[in-house]
């Protein structure tokens, strides 16, 4: 099975062949995977070098001429480093783009803090208009990438990860999917967190919702899943609490509770592997079982 990033390369290469409006901008990360696409479309596959302000500025300029830019690098260098370019060269100019990240939260634990950006989705929440896709499987990544590329001049963020679920969910972009029915609360698993959530809640009487698109937040989908109790647990593969406000807003007229689980804000100065970090963050199945069962009574 391919990785999400490998699928991204294959899908984007195919899209470039068929949609002359698309252009891909890279900043040295992922260049090898796009060598065939660059050979076929030298004017629409551009590597600016290790220049991330220019990466986003170039995407904005391409969009100003009517093209649909796709920009890709690690989340730290796609969202955080050129943050003002995201705000001004895309949003403030009134143009769209597809930003595709990898290594968002804990994909490369041995790489340490410099290569972790668990706050990326929360940052994008400070700006208007972003659609945020967080696929949990390469097949979902393909669906969401194709949707984002064809989605007019929208602002789309696709957050790819090395962490993934065993099986894909047939996702509809923008909609939460109900994967298990229960009555004593709703657990919303985002992207790669689904397998651990399903294992953790196996013996619990809860509804499990799955989100591969978190912005816009499918408030109607969450409302429709509420059973006897408006108790909601969010399990997100990025900064804990990122979607808490959206969940509270969705349930604003109901007495409700929200437990927001995710990657802690505190720096975690350890290296190692993805499973070790998920365990340390309380996000593996064992930890989730304890945290969710204590909350959903």
């Amino acid at each position, binding site marked *: 099975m391919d990785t999400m990033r490998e699928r991204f390369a294959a899908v984007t290469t195919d899209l470039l062949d068929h949609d002359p409006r698309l252009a891909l901008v890279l900043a040295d990360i992922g260049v090898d995977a796009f060598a065939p696409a660059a050979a076929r479309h030298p004017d629409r596959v551009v590597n600016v070098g290790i220049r991330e*302000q220019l990466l986003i500025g170039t995407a904005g300029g391409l969009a100003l001429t009517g093209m649909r830019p796709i920009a890709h690098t690690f989340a730290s260098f796609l969202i955080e480093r050129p943050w003002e370019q995201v705000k001004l*060269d895309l949003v403030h100019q009134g143009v769209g783009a597809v930003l595709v990240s990898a290594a968002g939260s804990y994909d490369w634990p041995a790489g340490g803090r410099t290569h972790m950006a668990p706050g990326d989705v929360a940052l994008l929440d400070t700006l208007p208009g972003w659609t945020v896709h967080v696929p949990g499987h390469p097949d979902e990544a393909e669906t969401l990438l194709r949707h984002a590329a064809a989605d007019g001049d929208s602002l789309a963020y696709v957050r790819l990860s090395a962490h993934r679920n065993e099986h894909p969910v047939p996702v509809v972009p923008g909609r939460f999917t109900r994967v298990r029915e229960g009555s004593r609360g709703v657990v919303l698993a985002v992207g790669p967190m689904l397998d651990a959530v399903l294992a953790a809640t196996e013996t619990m009487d809860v509804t499990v919702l799955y989100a591969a698109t978190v912005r816009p937040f499918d408030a109607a989908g969450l409302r429709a899943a509420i059973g006897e109790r408006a108790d909601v647990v969010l399990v997100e593969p990025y900064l804990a609490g990122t979607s808490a406000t959206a969940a509270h807003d969705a349930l604003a007229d109901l007495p409700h509770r929200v437990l927001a689980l995710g990657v802690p804000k505190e720096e975690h100065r350890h290296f190692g592997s993805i499973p070790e970090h998920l365990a340390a963050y309380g996000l593996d199945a064992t930890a989730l079982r304890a945290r969710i069962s204590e909350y959903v009574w």
Partner: protein
Amino acid sequence: MTTETPAVPYGFLDLPRLMALMTGDEKHGPAATSTLDALWVLYDRVLRVTPETADRQDRDRFLLSKGHGPMAYYAVLAAKGFLPAELLPSFGSYDSPLGHHPDRLLVPGAEISSGSLGHGLPLAVGTALGLRAQGLTDPAVWVLIGDAEFDEGSNHEAVAFAGAYGLDRLHVVAIDNSSATHGWRGGMAARFAAEGWSTETVDGRDHDALHRAFTAPHPGRPHAVVARVEPKTAA
């Protein structure tokens, strides 16, 4: 409000009066007019864009990167009929399209929104790439920066890339009024030349010299014109 172009076109000598509609003063110091001559020569003699062709895909693009002090820009846009001169007195007021930094969604004829320094040149790189990718090899992309704005590192990402890439439809006019805190030893043009750009350094008040520099051939290379004007502090 009318969007009709003036029956009698404005000339360069009308610009102080148009600026006065925004500033309330017909006498402007060098800082307020540092860009005025370069803007005028571009819009009057170089750029192939008019209010009628402002939406055409094959128009030349002018990106005002140095969005501070846009009175001269608005005056030139008004003189050339992109926006009605009657709008100028509203400068900076709540319902005016004319902010103290230009907003492309509000100002007719403005290609980009600017104000935060160092964004125009990277946007111009993307614009030049986008036109080239669409087979539009004729339209020119111009971006105006300032010598103090050049402090921003994002400019240097763009200068190095554009030179290496041979983006020959990309043009910079750099207004040098010696306002960069630490200066540019050896001159601004040297930074462009080192990255393979074609460069000219001229008197930024001399319209014929500006025109010659703006229209100098530069095959295979992007082109930078450094327009030197009175030091900002000399006002």
